Each structure stands twice: as C-alpha cells, then as structure tokens.
C-alpha cells in the first residue's frame, strides 16, 4: 500500500532523518513505477545454474493484475515438458500450486511465500511482490551513492517494517538519471544472502522494464537467470477469471 499523507506527516514528527527518508521514498516510488503496471502479460525463460551448470530451461506465461487494492499473479509453466501445465496462483499472501502432472491444486501456507519458487533462487515472494513495488513493506533510507554496472546509482536501504516481511533488509541501487533498479541485495541474519541484478531495460508503454534479470544466491552455488521475451502492459490477454482456483484447475 502506498504511504498515506498522514503516515508521512507522522514520520515528520518522529523521524530525525525525515528529509533523507522522504527523498529515498520518492526515489523508490519512481523506481517502483515499472513494477506497478497493471494487467501485465509476459512470457519468460528461466534458467537455474547449479555450480555453474545450466539446468533445463523453464518457460512460463505470467499474468498479473491489480484490483481492489490486491495484487493477483498467475504463472503457468509451458516448458520443460514435465512441468507443462503446472501453475502458481498468488493473491496477496495466499498461494496455490496446480500440478500439471496430476491436475491437482494445493493451497500452500502463507509461510511458503518465503520458499524457493520451483527450485529457483527466487522465492514466491520475490516473484509476486513486485506488483506492489518493493518499498511497500519496507522503510527506505538513503544510504549513499555508488556506481553499479557502470551506472551512477542511489543506494537505498529498505528496512523491514515488521517480522512478516521475507527479508530483514534490502539494499537497492537505483540509477540517478532514470530511476531504474539496477541491483537489489537481500539480507537475512545480517548478511547479504542473495542479489538480483537487472539488465536490458526496454520501454513498454512509457515504462522502463528489465527484460533480463539474474538472482544470485550467495549461500549456495546457484543463480537463476530470467529472460523476458514478451512484456505487455494493460494487456487484453489478462482476464479477471484467470485469478481463481477454478481457473487453475481448468488449465490443461
């Protein structure tokens, strides 16, 4: 949810670092804009590298939608053959998995959002939370500036607002000239456990979106690369009916 004006005013009173925080909030809000697009349809290829060895490429179609203040997302595997028809449906913190091999749908506990999505280095939360913007559950603080991948970036710390958030802290690097996320470092138990780096930004409907991103796991010899092939905003392919367990069960 966006910060309300009241929330910001309260911060004015209680936070000594208000000016910096406000600036950080603005920066993150601008960068989040790319992830807050509505009715997004995309197809992508995901490759997991274990100890440098590429595993079978996973291909999927994804649909996301914002409605009634809720974020809906549906991902359907189209390859490899074994996983075809397997799908993940996420509505806010609720998560369902439909198995292509058996046709069964199972609801997972909300704590499963922290788990690895399909053996990749992304958690379900990493994949689904983007729709609301990364700062939604975190308090931003401008930590400095740094050059990442040759780009001048703002370095902003996002501290968890409560213990329900998947990570205790994130450090995001946002380009100074066009407010693009370049890198996100994820922290658990005071250590940077994963890093996501964004590449190949393209402009779609006036919004910059990364067409390739890599999540590198720092606690295991593993990384996952996602290449987006199709990315449509306000896509007519996204239908409200997709985001129901009934539709999930009907997937073939």
């Amino acid at each position, binding site marked *: 949810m966006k910060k309300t004006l009241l929330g910001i005013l309260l911060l004015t009173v209680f936070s000594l670092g208000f000016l910096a925080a406000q600036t950080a909030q603005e920066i993150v809000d601008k960068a989040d804009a790319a992830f807050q697009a509505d009715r997004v349809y995309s197809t992508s290829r995901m490759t997991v590298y274990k100890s440098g060895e590429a595993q079978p490429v996973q291909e999927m179609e994804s649909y996301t939608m914002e409605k009634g203040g809720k974020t809906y997302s549906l991902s359907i595997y189209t390859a490899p*053959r*074994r*996983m075809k028809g397997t799908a993940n449906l996420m509505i806010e913190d609720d998560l369902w*998995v439909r198995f292509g091999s058996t046709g069964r749908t199972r609801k997972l506990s909300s704590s499963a959002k922290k788990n*690895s999505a399909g*053996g990749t280095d992304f958690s379900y939360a990493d994949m689904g939370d983007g729709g609301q913007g990364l700062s939604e559950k975190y308090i931003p603080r401008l930590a400095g500036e740094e050059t990442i991948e040759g780009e001048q970036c703002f370095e902003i710390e996002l501290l968890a607002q409560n213990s329900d958030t998947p990570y205790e802290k994130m450090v995001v690097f946002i380009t100074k000239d066009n407010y693009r996320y370049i890198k996100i470092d994820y922290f658990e*138990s*005071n250590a940077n456990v994963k890093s996501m780096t964004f590449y190949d930004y393209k402009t779609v409907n006036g919004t910059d979106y990364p067409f390739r991103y890599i999540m590198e796991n720092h*606690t295991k*010899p593993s990384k996952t690369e996602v290449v987006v092939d199709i990315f449509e905003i306000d896509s007519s392919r996204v239908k409200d009916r997709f985001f129901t367990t009934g539709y999930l069960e009907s997937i073939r």
Partner: protein
Amino acid sequence: MNQSQNFREKVLSRWAGWSIENWGKALLIALAITVLLGFGISRLRMEMTFYSMLPDKSNQVRDLKNIVENFSYASAVLVVVDGRSIDDPVEAEKTVKQTIDAITLEYSNDLYNPYIASVIGKVDMNLFKEHGLMLTKMDDLERLKRSYSDLNLVPLLKHINDDFEAEYSGNSDKLADEETQAVSQFRGLGELLKLIEQAAEGQEVSDSKLDEVLDSYMFGDPYIMSNDNRMGLIIVQPTFTMNDIQILQPGVDTIEIGAKKIAFRAGIKAGLTGITTVGRDEMVTSGQGLAVSSILSLLLILGLLVLVFRMFSVPIISGIPLITGILWTVGLSGFIIHRLNIMTAMYIVALLGLGIDYAIHLLSGYIQERDGGSDFKTAVEQSLIKSGAGIITGALTTSAAFFALTIAKSGLIKELGFVAGLGILSELAAMLIMIPPLLAYREHRLIKKGKKDHRIFSKIKIKSDAASGIGKLLVKAPLLIAIVMSLIIISFSFKAGDVSIQDNLLEMEAKGLESVHLNDVMIKEFGMAPDGLMIISSDLDEVKELSDKLDKLSSVKSVESISDFYVTENEYAERGSFLQHFVSELDDGAPSGTVDSEGLLDELYRLETNLMEMGDLAYLGNMDRLVHTLGDITGIDEDGVKTRETSFDRLFTILEENPNAGTSGSMENLQNAIYNNMDQKLRTMSSTGKISLDMLPTNIKDSLISRDGKSFLISISPTQSPWEGEYRDIFTSQMNTVTDKGTGMILVADQMNIMARQDGRTASIFAVFVVFLILVADFRNIKLALITILPLMGSFLTLFGIMAVTGIKFDFVNIIVVPLLIGIGIDDAVHISHRYLREGKGKMDLVIARTGTALLMTTLTTVFGFASFIPSIMRAMRSTGIVLSLAMAIAFLYSVFFHSAVLIIVTEKLGWNIKPWRRRIK
C-alpha cells in the same frame, strides 16, 4: 684522524682501526654477544602452527586450541569413497557401501592403531532405535503420532498421505532440506509397495525382509552418502592433530594408502580431504621443486660474490656475520617477545637477503679502495666511513619502517615489525663489528702465507666500478630517463588499485591437490563443506540453544552437537507424558484382520499422485537423487513421461480386478506383520528412561565430548566452501548474529583480510611516513628526503600495477614483499643520495660507478635468492618468488635510473639546494 669527519664517521674509523689491529679480540666480542643472546634463543618458542597467525589473546584462539587438543573430530580426516566410475547407479551405491565397510574393517588392523582413534563409516542407530522418540522434538512427535496412530495398512497409508500433503506438497525447500531423509523414507516406501504387491498376488512375505524394509522406512540409511548415492564418506578421527608435525605425514599417508588400496580392489576410487589432509599436503608440497633451484641460486650468489670481490673467502667473510646477525635477532626476539610465528620465521629467511646487502656494500667499498691503491688499513677504514654512512642511514630507515608496523592492531603485523626491525639492526651491527676483523684475519693469513690475490682473478676480473657506464648514460640523458620512467610509473599507477587479495587459502596450495579438489567435490556432491566453524561450551543448555538457532541460518548446512542427544528435565516431562499417552494408544489398537481393498486402492492412487507431485518439485529443485528415487517408484522419467509399469500399476490392476484381494490370507498376514513389527519398533523407541551421556555411541562421544568430559563441541557445516572470502563473510556474519564464540581454521583466512585490507595498509603508510621523517632528520633537507622516497613510491605503484595486470594476488606469504620493499626500495636510493652529497654536483657518473655495482650485486643476490621459489609447485611459494624478484628488480631500476636522473635534474638543471640545513657548503 680527519678533522672534517662527523661523529658517526669518527666512531666507524676508530672501530675499523682497532678491530683490524685486534681482530681476535673483536671477534671474541662478537662471540660474547652471541653467547649472551644465546640465552634469548633458549627462551624462544617456535610457533609454526596456524594458531600463531591468529590474534594471540582472543577467546577464539583459546577455544580453537582447546578444541584441536581435546576433540579429535576437529582434526578429522575425511575419506571420500567415489563410485562415479560405475554407470549403474544401483551397482555404484552397493559397491560404495561395501567399500566403506571394507575400509572401516581395514582401519581396525593394528597397523593403524598409532594413527586412528576411531572411524565412523555408518551412523550408529541403536540409541535411536531404543530412545528415538524421547530424542524427537514435540512438533515432530505430534506428526509421528498422527502418522502411526493406526498401524493397519489402509489407515497407515492414509496418514502417510496426509503427512506428505501437509509437509511436502508444494514445498521444495522442505524436500531439499530433508532430501537425504526423504530419499531413505521413499526407498523404504517403494520396498513396502513391492511387499504389498507380493502379498496381493497371494505370496507370503518373510519377516526378515519386512523388518529390513521397515527399518529403512523408519530410520533411514546409516551410511553418509552423496546426493546421487554414488559417493560415500568415512570420518576418521586421528590420534594426532595437524600441529603434530612428526606424525602428520606418516599418519595421513597410512590412512590414505589403506583407503586407496581397498577402493582399488573394488574397482573404484578413494581420496582424503579435510584440514588435516590439506596440512599434510602443504607440508609435502611446500618443499617440492625447490631443491635444485635453491642449490642453483646459492651457487650463483656465491659465484657472483667470489668473482666480484675476488676472494674465495668472501662467503665466510660475509656469511659469518650474516648468520651471527640472525642469531642475535632470534636471541633478542627470545628475550623480548618470546616467540617466532610462521610469518616472523619466514622473515628471518628473508633477512639473509637483506643482511648480505650490508656485506656487499662494505666489501665493495673495500675493493674500490684497494683498486684505488689504498693499503689494507686505509681501505677498510675508508670503506666503513664511505659505505658506512649509507648503510647506517639505510638500516635505520628500514628498521624504523619495520618498527613503525608495531602500531598495527593485528598482533601478527606487530610481531613482524618488531622482529624485522631488530633483524635489520642486528645485521647492521654484526656486519660493522665483524667484517673489519674478518678481513684483517684474511689479510693476516695472506701475509703469513706470502700470497696475493688468486691467479684466477687476474683473468676474470669484474671492475669495482663496472656500473660507471650507467652513470655516464644518466649524466647524458637524465630528462629522457626521468620522463620514460615517470610514464611507466603513471601507467601502472592506474591499475595499482586493482591489485586483489587472495582470501581463499586453498588457492595458495599446489594445483591439482586431491585434498583441495575433494573439498569442492564434497560441496557439490554432499552439499556440505569439510571445514566449518566450531563452538565449545560446558553448558549443555547453551549447546542446545545455540544449535537450534544456528541450524536456522541460511548459510548453515547442518549443525552437529550433543544437543541431539540431550533432553532437558522439562522435555523429559513433556515428551514422557506424550509418549505414555502414545503407547497407551498403541495398547488400544489391534490388527484389523482383513484389508479394505477399496480403501487401499484409494490410498494407493493418492499416494502415487503425491509421489508424482513430489517428483515434480524435486525435478524443479534439481534434487537428482530424489527425482531418481521417486521415478523408481512411479515409473516416471526425468521428462515426466511414464516409461514402465510399477508396483502401483500392478496393484491397481489386482485391486480393480479383484475387489476381495484385501481379504486374502497373504494380505491379512502382511497387515498383521506390518502392524506387529511397527508396533514393536515404536514401543521400543518410546522408552521414557533417562538418556545419559554414557549411553551415546562411542563415535559420538569421541566427536562431541571433550576427553575430560567437561566440554561439548558444536560443529557447524556451511553450505559452501568457507575458504572462499565472500561466502566466508556471509557465514561468519550470520554466525555472529547468534554467537561470537565460533572458531576454526577458516578464521586464519580472515586475519589475512584484516592484515591486508585495514591494519596492514595503515601500518605500511605510517611506516613510509616514519621513513620520510628519518630521511629528513638524516639529510636535514626536505627536498632531498622527498626525492629519495620517490623511487619507493614508484616501486609500489609499479609492482601493484603489474600484479593487477597479471592477476597475481597478495597472499599470506608474498605479502612480506611490502615491508621488504620499504626496506630495500629506500636503501638503494639512500646510498645514492649519500654518495651524491659526498661526491658533489656533476659527479653522478662517479656516484653510480662507486655505488652501482654494489646496488646491482645486492639486487642480484636478493633476486637469485627469491627466484629460487618460482619452480615450487605450491602456488603461494611460486607467487612469492615472482613478486619478490619483481619488486627487487623494480626497486633497483627506480633507485639507480629514476632517482639518479631526478637528482641530476633538480640539482644541476633546476638548481635546488639539497645540502643539509646547517652545512650549506659549496
């Protein structure tokens, strides 16, 4: 005595005069000093262990010493049995397990008694079989109770299905975390299905087979196997530690030969890893490849000295004071800091290279005076006066630079600075005290025998002013030389900041070492690193609390501690009551006789679906071992295609075609047998009796309880190699959120980072600053001090730039180049500056003619010495040889060419006054 001599020159002149007249007494004085300092040597501890690299007074080092001395687990030798050469996975697993048993048996022979304390080839399940449920956490007990609430076949399968759906469905993390346990359980389940199929077909099932299958299902595999079951692990706890230098190599060799011999017989391979094995390999490889090169370099150095100084006795004249200087250094270190560690001991070796330089300068001066026609006494006096000034200033600046390192926080750098500073002063003193009387002794013998210089030297004669050509070149084109060298420095300076630090100690070992390779194999195939961190505690409650917290960290693969076997009073009460209730429920149950065929069919369909979904999750999570195991049961290949008929299919057919199959005698017998066998196992496991530490399996006691029984070990295995710097930071950072008591050999690697990245850098900058102050005090001219320190700066920038471009990293061994370069880099320039002040403007050709040969000699002897490390197969030694040789060559070139050219330009072209403040003479 010349009235214009300063105090230093007067002292040197007097000593030269007296000591050549009374050479015997002078040598006796040196001997007396050596005897006196010999007491210091007797007080010295040689600490050639990894501990000596760690902060001396930290709790971590204290704990590490305690752990290594009291827990054989810390020195474990890991035997990796590798069956990957066998294509058939079932055959590979079988052969590996047989080989593990055979090696374990082999190690029970008397031959291994001196080296092996205990061997863990399989996990001892007996304690778990008797008290397993009391050792199980309440959450898991609840789950277990649900699973085994009714042991009749259909309810049992129903509860198994419920459990799978609740625990694993859609949760690939849980499957991955429990992969080994899950594989065992699924294998047992697969075997159980075969027995059900057998019974459904009307065949009876033997009790022993059923017992074996249920053991596998309920207790898992006792062997420590890799993810794909093609490799296995044996943990050997040796009787020695890696600090027992005498026994380390024969001990590890014997263990290795035994394992390889048995594996070879089985047609597979076995190899050793773990820190103790790496320590053995380091010991063996550090000297390999060096014998020939060391002898060659020694011969080259001696040949060069003999030829240049035209004396066969020069190795003795320079060697005796050189060794004496080292003895004095060691003696003084014994009196003051009481120990030498690996780094300071290594510096003592480097001191040979630095000390010989003083002899070369003094002997060069002597030869030049003799060539100039001076008699013996005048030649020695003038040599001491002319070369002595430069030597003393050089030595003072170098020792001051080293002493400045004592500001460092790191004890390692402090000690290095102190010993190195003492070493320089000791060498200086030994050379000044002993060379004049030794020359006098030689002269005395020559006169006595009526001999002159050997005939060979009249044929091969290297002139004492052989470097005069360089001097002439410098006078001719100082600007061009200065510009060219400046450009070289500037171009390398851009890259200098990119020089990196080798924070993976395993990368410093010889290439292709099996122990290092297997370290990586273990991470990849077993998902765990052989080396991790350890904690000791005498408080069992603390052990339990820490173990639970550490196990939750994402960088931690597993935690082993006594806490798995320690039950608190509250837990006894809670679990005891739970188990009593559980057993009473077992009492209430009974075999139901017939099996409900329809119910069985439903649960079998459900079970197949669950296993297929888990197979999908395992496939996505790249859990090959689980994919394979589940594929065996469901008949589904990696692509998700059903490739063959399974027990499920046959059971579906039987049960669909014959709805009364469940009522057959064989099915009824099987159900009864399963019921009774499981009931018996669960009742035995439900014992509520106290579990004392004495009841633990011997290997657990040996591993996790100290020899005196007073403290307990927590061993934390990381998910990746902790020797790799970036990962180690994550691992230790996460550890520190739980406790700061973690210790282990990997912390040695952190010292390298502290030393190189923070402390060492600050100390080195301070050392250079101190050198500058001494130069100012000595020259009493800031401009000359600045010009003299310039080549040192240039040398650093160029060396770092070359290292960055060629990818040579700083490591624990080659980092010695920093203090050495400060010492030698400044020395050469100081000699030239002093001589230039003495000779005056316009006489750079003479300065280089007088000092150049000595500088070249000192450089060549040092380069020859260090270059002998280059053929070493150990990467750290090789890089040390390259870096030090390179540094010495750069320092020489910049001192002789750059520094001299700059001196000419600023004094003769720009008219700078470089003379001392209170002595502005023409």
